[in-house]
């Protein structure tokens, strides 16, 4: 008995090392004649936080639904933890999901819904109550545990669905636009929770059309457009590579002098510099993003720095060019 347990454990550990968290290959999903996901390949490694980015109708939800067994693929395959998604029960064993704003029973309280989910996942006895407490603390909803969910705000409901996904202490989290429809406050709260979930042995696949969500929460990004992958990269590398395009807007307290503008134009790495009004200017870097150097220059000229903003992130620039947001036929 013990030996069996030991072996099973070893096997699981070996498996852990060699399998990816999520492996999607040649995945295609058609609805009638319309192909929503077209031959997509994607890998989420163990411990990786992957953002799935794309405009409305790109096929993000469709892809996540195939992975989580809500849709069956037209062709191709998806594996979670090395298990084919067709074996839904086994594939989802250590996966927590929130797909397309699901709802909890409005008459149930958080405790009731979490206890139901917990039992379905094999959490029993006193361990169940302890786990409910842990996840409700994690999403900051413990005080609301005995109120009916139907009375909750959208943000609170969203946090309960997150709590539900966390019940089995999952290795893999799959979230579809977890912040959609939230007000700025709810959005920040949920994003903070997402960041708090980060752990070296946990992977996340999150779809969004919010760029800052990806750069704040994820390590990697896959951009899809019209059901096809147009880019898959490490977020840091992407930022580094695109650094040449960064433009900063700077506002200062004193009037900007011609001498300063001359120095700025000659500053190493600056490809373009414009005075936008008496107190502000814009500068574009061609090479390194040396904004500290610019701050120094402002100090030397005693202009008094008031604010410095990056005009459109690098991610945004590449996202817009890659997804062709500007061409209107994308909106279906």
């Amino acid at each position, binding site marked *: 008995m013990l030996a069996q347990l030991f072996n099973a454990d070893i096997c699981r550990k070996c498996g852990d090392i060699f399998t990816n968290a999520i492996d999607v290959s040649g995945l295609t999903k058609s609805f009638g004649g319309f192909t929503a996901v077209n031959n997509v390949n994607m890998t989420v490694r163990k411990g990786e936080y992957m953002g799935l980015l794309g405009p409305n109708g790109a096929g993000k939800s469709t892809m996540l639904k195939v992975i989580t067994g809500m849709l069956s693929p037209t062709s191709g395959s998806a594996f979670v933890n090395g298990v084919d998604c067709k074996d839904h029960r*086994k594939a989802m064993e250590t996966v927590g999901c*929130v797909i397309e704003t699901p709802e909890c029973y409005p008459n149930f309280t958080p405790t009731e819904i979490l206890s139901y989910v917990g039992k379905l996942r094999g959490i029993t006895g006193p361990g169940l109550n302890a786990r409910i407490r842990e996840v409700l603390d994690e999403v900051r909803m413990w005080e609301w545990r005995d109120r009916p969910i139907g009375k909750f705000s959208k943000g609170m409901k969203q946090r309960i*669905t997150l709590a539900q996904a966390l019940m089995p202490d999952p290795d893999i989290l799959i979230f579809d636009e977890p912040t959609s429809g939230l007000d700025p406050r709810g959005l920040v709260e949920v994003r903070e929770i997402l960041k708090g979930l980060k752990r070296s042995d946990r992977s996340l696949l999150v779809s969004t059309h919010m760029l800052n969500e990806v750069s704040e929460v994820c390590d990697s990004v896959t951009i899809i457009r019209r059901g096809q992958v147009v880019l898959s990269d490490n977020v840091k590398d992407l930022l580094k590579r695109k650094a040449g395009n960064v433009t900063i807007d700077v506002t200062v307290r004193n009037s900007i002098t011609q001498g300063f503008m001359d120095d700025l134009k000659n500053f190493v790495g600056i490809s373009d510099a414009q005075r936008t009004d008496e107190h502000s200017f814009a500068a574009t870097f061609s090479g390194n993003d040396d904004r500290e150097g610019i701050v120094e220059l402002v100090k030397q000229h005693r202009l008094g720095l008031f604010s410095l903003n990056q005009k459109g992130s690098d991610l945004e620039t590449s996202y817009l060019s890659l997804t062709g947001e500007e061409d209107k036929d994308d909106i279906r």
Partner: protein
Amino acid sequence: MTSDEMTSNEAAGPGRKYKLPSEISQLISVFGAQMRLYSKSKVAIAFIILALVIPVLAYSGAAETIIKGMIKAIPSTSYLLILLPLFTIAIPAMMAGRILSSEFANRTAYLLFTLPVSRTTYYLGKFLAALTLSIGVFAMAYAFAVICGSGMYGPSYPNDVLSSFVMCAVGVFALTAMAYGLSTYFKKGSTGLVISMMIFLPMIILALRGMTGDLDLSEGTGSSVFDPLMMLPPFTGYQSLYLIDNGIGGTSLRSLFKAFIGPYPLFAYLLVSIIWGTVFLILGMLNVKRKEL
């Protein structure tokens, strides 16, 4: 407590995993959750109250007045029992006709269907809950009606009560399965459809029989030619009344409901109901299994 359960209890806490329970224990959880949902549902509670109110209706004479006003042709005894055939239809349709379609309409399926639970487990677990409640509420209504009926019209024979109840219970199964299976095909469920089908179908058949002169309800003489369609579940309530009326209704109801009893043994009716129910149950299950969310 099994050793498996011990492990999962001890494993509670961050960094440790839980063992997926068997499909049977998942089925029991689904069943339990559905029963809990019923306990918070106004329709379910209303029906239980209605069943509890039967003795009051009976002994206050209210039932007699109401039903006599509606159906003049019925002989003057056993007014109360005539509610039973309607109950065999209304209870299953209300209890089972919406629970699954509302999971899709209210998007709770979007949460549950991502869990490591097979759709068959959800489907059967919820059905068993609907069946338990339908038969439970019906049994309560039936028991009250029979007790009140015996009190008013004299005792019935225990054997007839048992076979009459079994007939009704199997009819309730058939209609619960029908309402439940059909509900997967309609966004708003099947309650209205099942109630109207089950009320109009008998009316159409009776009208046809009446036109050909095979059935004469007003005289209480019963039909001379039995229509095999009358073996279908919408009629089980009337058939069971025929059985039970041996003792408590004298000859009055018995002759009226004779129209619904053909020359077949009891198990033939039970078999028809069981096949009917199973077919609808399977149709619904196939639909849920291939449903795309």
